[in-house]
């Protein structure tokens, strides 16, 4: 402890002698680094601006997509509801009315560029179809889609939901 204290004043005295002026080369290196850093910062900023612009487009797209994805189950259930109706039931005016409501939902999707993915009879493609199961089938080719469990959709060229299908074994 005491030793430390004694040493310090000496250090202080010595220090100023050790201070050297930077050489021209050192100054040039410093400058080069500073310019390089500045360039990088400018580039970073420029990139950020571009990124923010593209992010904004992406955020809007994403928000629309989320909303559409939450709406789809309603349409799915309308589809479930209308499958397996007897002819008599199909003629019922109540049923018809509900079908018009379903149509409204479908039109809404079209308005937002949401289109259905083709399934029946198509060859299975995991890029847009999700296989739920496979079944033996008489006339279909192997790997062909024979049942649609849930419709798939494309929005602005992007698959927002893959179609769930059953394929021929």
């Amino acid at each position: 402890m005491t030793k430390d204290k004694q040493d310090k004043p000496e250090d202080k005295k010595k220090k100023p002698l050790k201070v050297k002026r930077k050489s021209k080369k050192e100054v040039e290196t410093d400058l080069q680094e500073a310019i390089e850093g500045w360039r990088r910062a400018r580039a970073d900023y420029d990139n950020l601006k571009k990124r923010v612009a593209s992010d904004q487009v992406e955020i809007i797209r994403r928000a629309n997509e989320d909303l559409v994805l939450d709406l789809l189950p309603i349409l799915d259930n309308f589809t479930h509801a209308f499958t397996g109706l007897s002819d008599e039931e199909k003629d019922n005016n109540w049923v018809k009315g509900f079908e018009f409501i379903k149509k409204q939902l479908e039109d809404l999707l079209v308005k937002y560029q949401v289109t259905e993915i083709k399934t029946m009879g198509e060859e299975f493609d995991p890029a847009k179809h999700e296989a739920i199961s496979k079944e033996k089938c008489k006339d279909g080719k192997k790997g062909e889609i024979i049942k649609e469990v849930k419709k798939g959709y494309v929005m602005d060229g992007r698959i927002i939901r893959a179609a769930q299908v059953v394929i021929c074994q």
Partner: protein
Amino acid sequence: MPKILGIDLGTTNSCMAAVEGGEPQVLENKEGNRTTPSMVAIKQDGERVAGQLAKRQAVTNPKNTIFSVKRLIGRKFDDPEVQKDIELFPFEIVQAGEGVKIKMGDKEYSPQEVSAMILQKLKADAEAKLGEEITEAVITVPAYFDDSQRQATKDAGKIAGLEVKRIINEPTAAALAYGFNKKKDQKLVVYDLGGGTFDVSVLEVGDDTVEVKSTAGDTHLGGDDFDQTIISYLLSEFKKDQGLDLSKDEMALQRFKEAAEKAKHELSTTEETEINEPFITTDESGPKHLNMKMTRAKLEELVMDLVDKTLDPCKKALEDASLQASDIDEIIMVGGQTRMPLVQKKVEEFFGKKPNASVNPDEVVATGAAIQGGVLQGDVKDVLLLDVIPLSLGIETLGSISTKLIDKNTTVPTSKTQIFSTAADNQPSVEIHVLQGEREMAGDNKTLGRFMLDGIPPAPRGVPQVEVSFDVDANGILNVKATDKATGKEQKITITASSGLSDEEIAKMEEDAKKHAVEDKKKKEKIEAKNTADSLVYTAEKSLKEGGDKVDKKIKKTVEDKIEALKKVKDGDDVETIKKSTEELSTELQKIGEAMYKEQQKAQGAAGAQGQPGAGSQGAPGKDAGQASDAGKKDETVKGEAEEKKKEGK
């Protein structure tokens, strides 16, 4: 500089992240998801697919769809784990020397090669996202992985075209993501309940290292078991209710699965959810619906055993580390299933401490890996610390209001320029009173300095343009300059960082600002109403003086009355009354404007279109010129420059 990709190569799902702009960011894959199924397949047509696509075709192609390859990597064929898994996997595993190979298509692949296919997919998607080539990565592995498993993981990276800069432990990565690697001697527990595996690790932070003291877990326990429990419950309830067993109906089962997952997620944030799957099936009697309510309590009752099963490994890990639950400083949650409140509650009860779950538990490991990558990259001089100004900077304007030029939290260096004007006719000088703080009134903020700009040529109020510019350099030194645009005369002041405030003072000022926000706003509103009233009285009197003879006597009289009325109320305390009187005068005044305008048109005839002096200019000069009596009174209160142009415009 190429980025180092941080990869959490998981048993069920993988996740990747990279440091961008100094912050770790999770990167989305091509399909737009933040996690990627750790699955690979060779389709019938020979095409290889990985990730989501492999998962989608799994049921059609079970023999050639490989998942959970992490359970095999770097293990010997006679390893009991491998032998156990062989029975569970639908794909074929063969012995190759001491190790294993997996049959896919008509070829055999080592687990490294299969892992590499997943890594390749991640690499390609990251490159697409970042727009640059990725050649280096940090990959995480479970803490219990031995040398051979680690080496095999490293080889997988190499096969995928990635130089693996480092293999780090998953719990260590999670600790990095929370920044818990800095406090020496800190003891951490990482509780990782993933899709199919459970791991718990005890860590101790050393000088420059994070040491894994012990690990324990259950290789076949995870979120999937939770889902299965819920599905079974829903199926049995439906059977009880409708008398139908749908467990063999693939189409209905799919909907049960989705409903169970949705219910599980929703019950993490709500106490009750409705499971609503109408028209789930049809029999002779007509359509059947799955419609039931499920409470969080019911869910917790169902999965209680599963959660309890995680506590034994926790106990074991503590024992192996020779620690008590009370020795643990921090608990970190990893894996999607830890979002369940019951899991968090049980962990909290066990360790007697609230677990950390603020970083997305699906992404926390990849985030930590990216941070490690950033640290490795940071060896190269690249880090530039950017400072922000802690409190807003501004000047005092008419009525002792503090007008901010630079908002707090602005990154420095920065500068801002704004034009102000005078508050009185023939005002020869303005005082620039530089302020720091968030309060609305000048007096409540800290004075950083003040100076006068004089020699402003005589002119009506609002006409002179005084440009005030603030410039904060990278060291936080503030330069304030005021220039009279007409004469080019300027004055400036430099305020060094030393005249700023300590952290405590800043905190106090911020608190004050919050505390007084409402009353400050009211005070400011009152002054602004008075300023607007003053300005309008001035304009009105001037208009009468200049154009009064052209105006109908009746209108003139009304305007005069309204002026008197406003003068009476404008110095009072009732903001609403001031605003109302101002509004009334403003309406009357428009009539004079109209009358004058008509006169002018008449006088100028067809050439009238050009004859609107000043109409397109700043607006302020024409509006405010003339009349001194009223403005003269205000000289004491007006410290310097008058209303900001912006505010005038409103």
